[in-house]
């Protein structure tokens, strides 16, 4: 297969830029990626990109990486998928290692101890805030509340791992849907 270097460069540049200049997660990257993929490099029509972006959010995994994989694969096959993904994650990887190393040089004494403890308390509060934000949108019926509470209790108080709990929750939702649809069929 003839690999088009120009296309590979476009893929890398698009996702590298999106990965370098967006903070707080992959969802924020999508509009930036859309602009480059559709308008600047004209790799695909907008409808295709929108469908990929939707699928990227439905499938499990990192949204930005899912999106890079879809766009890369449809543009330049397997190599395209690798190149686009490399672009999406390399800044995060390099900068995070730098940040981790630098953090270890910050002296943990005197006033800095207090500063760190304050930052950590606020950091815990931001996680609570994420639970609130997501909960506001997703805890709208009794089943959802039961699933959230059961997952919370299982992972916190038993030896259940988080990945296992989330699978069980998905299967519960699926079983409930299946049960509901067979009942309406019988009623009809």
């Amino acid at each position, binding site marked *: 297969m003839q690999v088009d270097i120009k296309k590979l460069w476009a893929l890398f540049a698009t996702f590298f830029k999106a990965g370098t200049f967006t903070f707080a997660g992959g969802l924020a990257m999508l509009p930036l990626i859309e602009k480059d993929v559709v308008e600047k490099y004209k790799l695909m029509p907008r409808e295709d990109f929108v469908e990929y972006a939707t699928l990227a959010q439905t499938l499990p995994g990192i949204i930005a990486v899912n999106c890079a994989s879809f766009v890369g694969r449809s543009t330049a096959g397997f190599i395209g998928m690798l190149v686009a993904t490399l672009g999406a994650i390399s800044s995060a990887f390099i900068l995070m290692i730098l940040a981790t190393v630098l953090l270890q040089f910050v002296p943990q004494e005197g006033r800095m101890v207090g500063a760190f403890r304050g930052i950590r308390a606020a950091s815990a509060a931001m996680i609570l805030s994420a639970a609130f934000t997501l909960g506001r949108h*997703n805890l709208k019926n009794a089943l959802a509340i039961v699933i959230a509470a059961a997952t919370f209790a299982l992972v916190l108080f038993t030896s259940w791992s988080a990945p296992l709990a989330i699978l069980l929750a998905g299967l519960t939702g699926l079983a409930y849907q299946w049960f509901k649809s067979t009942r309406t069929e019988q009623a009809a």
Partner: protein
Amino acid sequence: MIILQCLKLFYTFFKIGMVGFGGGYAMLSMIMTESLKYAVTIEQLADLNALDLLVPGPIAINAATYVGFLDSGFWGALAATIGVTIPSFIYVSLFAHLVARYQDSPLLKGFLAGVRPAAVGLIGVATVTIASGVLLTPGMSVSTLLSDPLGTLSLTAVAIFVAAAVANIRFKVSPILLVLLAGVVGAIFIV
């Protein structure tokens, strides 16, 4: 030894990627609860969340790199990051057509409807795990929380936690600003 540890990291993060529903914070919560098996402290996990605000890129990549690096250096960071990335290749290559075809199927919708509230529960677990580590007076443990709450909890840290949560949830104050302010307040009031 390092190779074995890297394989372990790869496997943990691969699992998280395979069930990584519900966006960045849900995956971050999974990473936080699973990372306690590694050479990472609760304080370091709290720092991770603050670093996420400063370092660009996908939250789960930041988290995998951080935890992998703290546990096993550069190769650990690489193993964890590759582990959390590969599931995307698998899903996109093998299941994309399937998911596209069944995107409107009630069963897939049912599955996702079950996964989303579970993500909320997981973020709740991460909150409790991190808070129980960073809101205590140094040297105390959660075991004395009920018998001696005032001696166990650091009141300043709890005050910062509550104030930051209310400011962000109720008044939408930016997380970066809150974390910086908390650092200043901590430097002044926590001795």
